[in-house]
């Protein structure tokens, strides 16, 4: 865990030259994937590879189907044509959509407890404590989640990602309506994850607000 006050070093990404397709490090291979809504293809067929320890950014303006694509890769929706092949177990995927998935009536800690139990990873009080401090959610533990602001709810979901990290994260516009501190948090989280050999697929409609080397995949509307 990076000490909070150290300025974030510009993380030098693993060299992303022409991706050598070696099955060992390739987590996901997508070939000619396209999604249909109401009988019409949303974007031109898409092919890319997700390497271990790298980030793929799916760039498209709103309404072209980047959320549908992300949900399809996460197995939450069904693609129309083409196929994609995960080389990692389905239990290693983590998905963060627009709705973080918090139960409003339950307190923050309860939500975390049930999440981590559902993710089948242990409850490490020290890590949770450190995480709460790092994501400055201290003092809100017993508050019902409904009382938290959208930014705080997003940070709880990010804390969950840190506490039960899977091999691959699928984040839908992680930097959307976050303040400066929030953006730094997300960047640090992604950086640590990549350093530990995880990988991330994220969607965004503009330029990323932080210098992360990404394999940029553009969705071309049909």
């Amino acid at each position, binding site marked *: 865990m990076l000490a909070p006050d150290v300025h974030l070093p510009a993380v030098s990404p693993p060299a992303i030259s022409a991706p050598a397709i070696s099955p060992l490090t390739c987590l996901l291979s997508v070939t000619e994937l396209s999604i249909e809504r*109401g*009988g019409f293809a949303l974007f031109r067929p898409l092919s890319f590879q997700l390497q271990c320890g790298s980030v793929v950014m799916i760039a498209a303006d709103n309404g072209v189907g980047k959320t549908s694509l992300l949900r399809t890769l996460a197995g939450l929706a069904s693609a129309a044509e083409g196929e994609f092949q995960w080389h990692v177990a389905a239990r290693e995927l983590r998905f963060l959509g627009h709705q973080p998935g918090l139960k409003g009536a339950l307190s923050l800690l309860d939500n975390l407890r049930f999440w981590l139990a559902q993710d089948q990873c242990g409850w490490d009080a020290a890590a949770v404590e450190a995480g709460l401090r790092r994501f400055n959610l201290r003092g809100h533990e017993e508050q019902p989640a409904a009382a938290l602001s959208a930014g705080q709810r997003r940070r709880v979901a990010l804390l969950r990602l840190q506490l039960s990290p899977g091999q691959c994260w699928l984040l839908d516009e992680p930097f959307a309506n976050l303040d400066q501190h929030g953006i730094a948090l997300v960047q640090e989280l992604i950086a640590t994850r990549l350093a530990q050999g995880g990988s991330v697929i994220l969607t965004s409609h503009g330029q990323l607000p932080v210098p992360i080397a990404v394999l940029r995949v553009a969705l071309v509307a049909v």
Partner: protein
Amino acid sequence: MGFWTWLNRQGSPPRFFDWTKHWVRWCWYLFFPTLLFGLYLALLVSPADYLQGESARIMHVHVPSAWMSLTVYFIMAVQAVGVLIWRLKVCEALMLAAAPTGAMFTAVTLLTGMLWGRPTWGTYWVWDARLTSELVLFFMYLGIVALAQAYSDRRAGARAAAVLCLVGVVQLPIIRYSVEWWNTLHQGSTIRLLGESSIHASMLWPLLVLTLATKLYFLAVWLSRARWLIVHSERQSAWVLQRLGLAP
């Protein structure tokens, strides 16, 4: 080329569209004479039943429809397996194409059952075990059709309807048994509407001919509706445009 690869290739939409064209035409050609012959046998040739008199002739229409209402449901359940496991577009089209015809046969069974009940029992509707389970089956058909159409994404609708169809097919024998058990509990064994009393041979022929007629009818309507559901779901692809003579 193994049987399975042949079957799989037959299942591909364009090939399915082609070879079923002949089936549909032949089914219609065979259906009309069979129907006319069956009606002739049922209405004119077969003698009146010694117990119920002339109104027993309604049986020649009621029973084939009742058998068809069940057969169609099981055919849909078989297609539902194809929809859920292999996600075949042809299975989705075949399942959804069969539902309206199944509902129609169930409605015919109910209406003719009521018209048969009036002279024999004096009331149109009797909570007889068979009629009750036909009524429940009718609502199961409506449930499948309504669920399939409720989804904006047609393929997701077909899959949801497939799950409902499979759950329904597991419950169907239990529903039929529970209704019959309920009737025996209530009034002892009532005279069964479909009298299993010895059916005289001359009564059997019209029944079999009309049953064959309903099977041919079902094949014709089912396959032709399925063909065009496939065309609709593949309306973007080249083979559809080529078949319709719209190829650029």
